[in-house]
């Protein structure tokens, strides 16, 4: 169940004077069960890239395969592909339309051509998976809070039972609590259902704690594709791309610079707390 991109190029408005080379020669393999963080400054091509993965944008040039099959090959069903590769867009307002939350989540599975019972079962499971309260199933998707809308939007895609789940900036515009909840939810989907996750973001803090692999994009090309710790070693380059390290990493680096013996590549708060506490204990015991 892997996906590969070979020399994919994408050019918008090709034959005008404002053409944009959004993707430049992208080569990428997405393996089963990975948790990938896709990161980059606004306008670097992250959204364009993920829309290539489920066949929403046709590459100007290059080959995209799913399980070894060319997704633009003869007889390939792209509608079915979109059931396997689920993409949640940035703003839930762009997809919510039904009278109530439950029917809205049913939209995806209905489009897959499943029977009524299976559709409702999947919608129910998906809403449960995202932690949406039962008693609000009947409420209008336009009247719930921003965080809840996002949950419903994710459930709407989850109900199609995708193998690969792509989330485009799922935490944008949420408060810290809502952000944490959504990230925790995504990480749980990854752990419990061993779902392949691609988390798109421009914030290192979002992806640092969860992603096992980090892809950094800059001006339409892939700048880095490695483990987060390895990527974070390139501080200067990342900052030149308009990206920052996770805040904790900056603290650890400052500590190290001031003569404390700590690991300055730590990326999550928990790791940092452990490191600082153990340092403190070793000094004061």
């Amino acid at each position: 169940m892997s996906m590969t991109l070979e020399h994919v190029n994408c050019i918008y408005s090709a034959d005008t004077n404002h053409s944009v080379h959004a993707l430049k020669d992208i080569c990428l393999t997405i393996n089963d069960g990975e948790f990938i963080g896709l990161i980059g400054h606004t306008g670097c091509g992250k959204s364009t890239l993920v829309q290539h993965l489920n066949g929403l944008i046709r590459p100007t040039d290059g080959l995209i395969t799913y399980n070894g099959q060319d997704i633009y090959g003869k007889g390939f069903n792209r509608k079915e592909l979109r059931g396997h590769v689920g993409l949640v867009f940035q703003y839930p307002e762009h997809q919510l339309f039904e009278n109530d939350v439950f029917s809205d989540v049913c939209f995806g599975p209905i489009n897959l051509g499943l029977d009524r019972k299976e559709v409702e079962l999947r919608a129910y499971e998906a809403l449960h998976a995202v932690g949406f309260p039962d008693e609000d199933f009947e409420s209008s998707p336009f009247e719930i809070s921003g965080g809840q809308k996002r949950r419903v939007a994710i459930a709407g895609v989850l109900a199609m039972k995708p193998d690969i789940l792509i989330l485009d900036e799922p935490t944008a515009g949420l408060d810290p609590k809502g952000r944490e909840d959504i990230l925790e939810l995504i990480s749980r989907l990854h752990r419990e259902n061993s779902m392949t996750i691609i988390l798109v973001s421009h914030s290192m803090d979002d992806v640092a704690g969860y992603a096992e692999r980090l892809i950094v994009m800059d001006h339409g090309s892939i700048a880095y594709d490695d483990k987060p710790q390895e990527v974070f070693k390139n501080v200067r380059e990342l900052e030149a791309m308009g990206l920052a390290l996770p805040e904790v990493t900056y603290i650890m680096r400052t500590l190290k610079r001031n003569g404390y013996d700590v690991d300055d590549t730590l990326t999550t708060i928990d790791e940092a707390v452990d490191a600082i506490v153990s340092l403190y204990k070793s000094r004061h015991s």
Partner: protein
Amino acid sequence: MIREITIGQYYDEESVIHRLDPRVKLVATLIYIISIFVVNNIPGYAFVVVFLGICIALSHVPFKFIVKGLKPVMIILFITIAFNMLLTPGEILWKFWILKISREGLKAGATMALRLTLLITGSSLMTLTTTPNNLTDGMERLLRPLTRIRVPVHEIAMMMSIALRFIPILLEETDIIMKAQMARGADFESGNIFRRAKALVPLLVPLFVSAFRRANDLAMAMEARCYRGGEGRTKMKPLKYNGRDYAAYAIVWLFLAGCIVLRIVL
């Protein structure tokens, strides 16, 4: 796919046509439209086509881009041709069952198609070379005499500029919503007409919701800056005629005169 619609879009370029005063372009477009209906013979049409061709060349807008804008109106064009061809009585050239094509019909269809194409190309050249803001400024200035008879010219111009401003935004939004629903397996392209109409609901509901939200936000922002209509309002960049604007006026009037002459003489 929806982004391919180029009608009413502005094409950013440096050219003589772009730099002309919007009032000149509005008046010139009006004269041009009149002239299309003045000419009635082949040399006349050739004259109009050449004039339009020169304008397009001067505007530096790629010809391909203009042709692309014609695509969405192709259907209307074909329907017009078909109706004209089949329903105009006259000398019959071809007959099948109840369908008849007459010589007169063929001529009327061809004329109509040519006129429509010229009309659309000409007026889209104006919008391609004028920013929406400039366009409404020009319109407001040209219609100002009407304020004497209590026509709310400024308000109309304001509404127009807001509407024009929102076209690209809503088009882009439509594109995103379409993709978001396609990601959930929606199908906008197959099925019969009823299924297709029904498939539009998941597209139209979010689009309307967002349009209303944007309208609300805009109204709030205008109110927050104490907007209160046109009375006593001055412009940051007042419109001013230059030498080339007078020259352009002279050229279009001469063009109209040429069309009239061609009609009378031939």
